[in-house]
């Protein structure tokens, strides 16, 4: 199983770790892990297009959260003329989920005033899982390849 899939599975484990009274640490780490699962799914897909395998890890370090947000924010309502309509929907869902999860991850990691519940956390992990499915449905399309490049170098 790829690293991103492992992270997504781990997010689910953390969310359900404490049966009765879930610890905030488990819930907050679950949200953060769900975000990083999608982050690594996309960055890994992007660098796998780089021919020199030995340079892929270094290239992956070039991705920035804010630039990825910028591209996803511009993609979530974007139309793709000439592209398959279903593929466009899948890509918009991936982008929308990334934006949502990134915001939640910031709250989970840095906002100590906020309490989380199991439903809140499941409500974050479930879209991540749907985004994985959507990505796998669209990843071979030209619009997906263009999207991966824009995650690294946003459109000006």
């Amino acid at each position, binding site marked *: 199983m790829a690293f991103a899939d492992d992270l997504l599975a781990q997010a689910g484990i953390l969310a359900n770790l404490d049966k009765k009274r879930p610890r905030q640490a488990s819930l907050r780490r679950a949200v953060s892990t769900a975000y990083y699962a999608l982050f690594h799914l996309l960055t890994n897909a992007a660098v796998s297009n780089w021919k020199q395998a030995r340079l892929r890890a270094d290239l992956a370090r070039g991705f920035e959260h804010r630039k990825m947000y910028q591209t996803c924010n511009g993609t979530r309502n974007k139309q793709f003329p000439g592209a398959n309509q279903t593929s466009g929907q899948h890509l918009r869902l991936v982008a*929308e989920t990334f934006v949502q999860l990134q*915001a939640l991850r*910031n709250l989970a990691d840095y906002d100590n005033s906020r309490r989380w*519940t199991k*439903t*809140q956390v499941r409500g974050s992990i479930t879209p991540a899982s*749907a985004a994985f499915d959507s990505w796998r449905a669209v990843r071979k399309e030209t619009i997906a390849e263009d999207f991966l490049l824009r995650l690294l170098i946003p459109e000006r």
Partner: protein
Amino acid sequence: MLAPDVKRILYSIAPDWTGQESLFFRIVLTDEASEPKPLRKIVLHVPQTINKAIKAEELGLQTYFTYRSKSETEEERDPEWEA
């Protein structure tokens, strides 16, 4: 439109982590709708329905959604979720 799964919708306006003014929705669900299986459908359906209703795209508004069950809301007694 969202009944009977959605019990209450609350929202606040605040900047998100990028500084963009955003609408943060807090959705209270029935306990049945908060179970993993129905929740999967709801978390995809609710944002689409609300964004369409408020014309978020046309207004250029960023929206965020979080969910709690009715029991969790009662247990936590968090004023943000009870307003």
